[in-house]
């Protein structure tokens, strides 16, 4: 695999230098080398934090900014950040109003956040958490606590970040983020594997001509491997599964996010979106907020994910709230 890197063990450090150099208006370093915070003075609001492994850019650090995240803990490629870095991110985000830690359901992250929360409590910082579990492929509907968090995390951050920007209390921010993820379902399709730079070779494979439905953001197994289908059928597979799972109902307004996994041409994301939009509308479901792009990637994996979130008045308002970040900018209306 041909790469634009120096030492494969230093890719995270090396890329953080680039982020800080490119976006001094949005991002600032902290005392912890693996924690970035929002540039400028603290907001005085509830702090909104996330963290996760690297290799998903622009997630996670690309969503730091006004109306979104205040600080992010950054792990090695595809590995949870340390408990200490989560703790440092809490400290960087806390303005005395407490911290909402909105992260994804992975073993490492769960362990490290749990331990960081204890550390923060000792330091007098109140941390409450919401664990994203939007990936319908990773467990059945009655085992939602086993499901992974995937691209729906972005909508959770958007909701929580907007609620915090509105001046919500910690409980209000947590409630908004929890509602956001509870109303969100995602499903991905993988079309090629990816290679962790330090490992040097992919640790799973997807044959050309076959697709893995329900693949995770690190190549975790999906629910089925089948011959690659046309985009219209991929959309059917994904939309049906998502719609049934919540379920979404006729008359629902939704936010929709189609994300590439890294190497998928942008053109193809829009080909898929056309079908997703059409299928949702055919079911009486109206996409009111639409995001298409490489929002949550897995290095150079080829593939796509579809995410839908049912909106109520609050979530609709929170999606429309202005936000500015590397990965997502929403202008006030």
């Amino acid at each position, binding site marked *: 695999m041909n790469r634009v890197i120096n030492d494969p*063990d230093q890719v995270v450090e090396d890329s953080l230098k680039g982020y800080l150099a490119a976006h001094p208006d949005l991002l600032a370093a902290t005392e912890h080398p693996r924690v970035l915070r929002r540039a400028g003075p603290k907001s005085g609001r509830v702090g909104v934090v996330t963290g996760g*492994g690297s290799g998903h850019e622009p997630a996670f650090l690309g969503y730091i900014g006004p109306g979104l995240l205040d600080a992010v803990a950054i*792990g*090695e490629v*595809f*590995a*949870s*950040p*340390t*408990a*200490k*870095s989560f703790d440092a991110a809490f400290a960087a985000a806390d303005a005395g109003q407490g911290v909402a830690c909105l992260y994804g359901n992975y*073993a*490492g992250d769960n*362990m*490290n956040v*749990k*331990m960081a929360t204890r550390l923060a409590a000792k330091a007098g910082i109140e941390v409450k958490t919401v664990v994203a579990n939007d990936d319908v492929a990773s467990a059945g509907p009655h085992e939602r606590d086993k499901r992974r968090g995937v691209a729906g995390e972005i909508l959770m951050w958007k909701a929580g970040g907007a609620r915090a920007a509105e001046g919500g209390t910690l409980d209000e921010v947590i409630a908004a983020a929890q509602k956001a993820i509870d109303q969100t379902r995602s499903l991905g399709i993988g079309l090629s594997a990816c290679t*962790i730079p*330090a*490992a040097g*070779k992919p*640790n*799973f494979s997807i044959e050309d001509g076959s697709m893995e439905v329900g693949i995770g953001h690190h*190549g*975790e*197994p999906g629910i089925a491997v089948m011959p690659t289908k046309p985009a219209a059928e991929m959309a059917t597979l994904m939309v049906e599964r998502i719609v049934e799972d919540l379920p979404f109902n006729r008359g629902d307004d939704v936010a929709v996010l189609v994300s590439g996994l890294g190497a998928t041409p942008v053109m193809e994301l829009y080909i898929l979106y056309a079908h997703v939009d059409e299928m949702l509308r055919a079911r009486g479901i109206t996409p009111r907020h639409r995001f298409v792009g490489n929002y949550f990637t897995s290095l150079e994996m080829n593939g796509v994910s579809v995410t839908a979130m049912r909106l109520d008045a609050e979530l609709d308002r929170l999606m429309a709230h202005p936000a500015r970040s590397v990965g997502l900018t929403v202008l006030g209306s």
Partner: protein
Amino acid sequence: MNSVSERAAGSIVPDMVAAIVLEQGFLSEIDGKIGDGDHGINMSKGFRLAGERLSDGAGLGQGFTTLGDTLLGDIGGSMGPLYGTFFTEMADALNGAERIDAARFSAMLRAGVDTVADIGGAKPGDKTLMDVLVPAQAAFDAAHGRGEEFAACLTAMTAAAAAGLESTRDMVAKVGRASRLGERSRGTLDAGAASCNLLLATLADGLLRELGRGA
């Protein structure tokens, strides 16, 4: 002698670091068969860093604290918290004791195993380091319960740890990355179990050495 000096046992911590660094290639190799091939890298990164931070003349408790803090503070992933709290809890369980006897060791090991079980949620049979930890602790406690000497308890522990590692060969992984492979994960040792066996064996060897020395 049926106990060792906590201070003297501190010299075992660099041995454990050396063992992990030495076996790094082997650990990555077995992780590569059914995981992502980085277990040796992850472990040696953390242990090497901890090794650099060990203070001269530190006892076993302080050594384990350094190991635990480094893994927790610099490694992340799952290994950071699992091995990190493992060593941190074991250090806490020593509770400032000046000598370590079989009872103290048993309490220490139990604290370590309990926290890995608590934080990781894996059970024996899942093809993880629990398949080494649980039988190792059981064997130690059984020997201790039978009234055997500390040295004999340690020997029983290492034998059980090695057997536990070997037992992972025939298991289907239920936890972690290797669970992706389902049935295909059978036939290979588990990488975490291998590093855990290595750590317990090195710890036991060091204690036996100190016991022999009659320190």
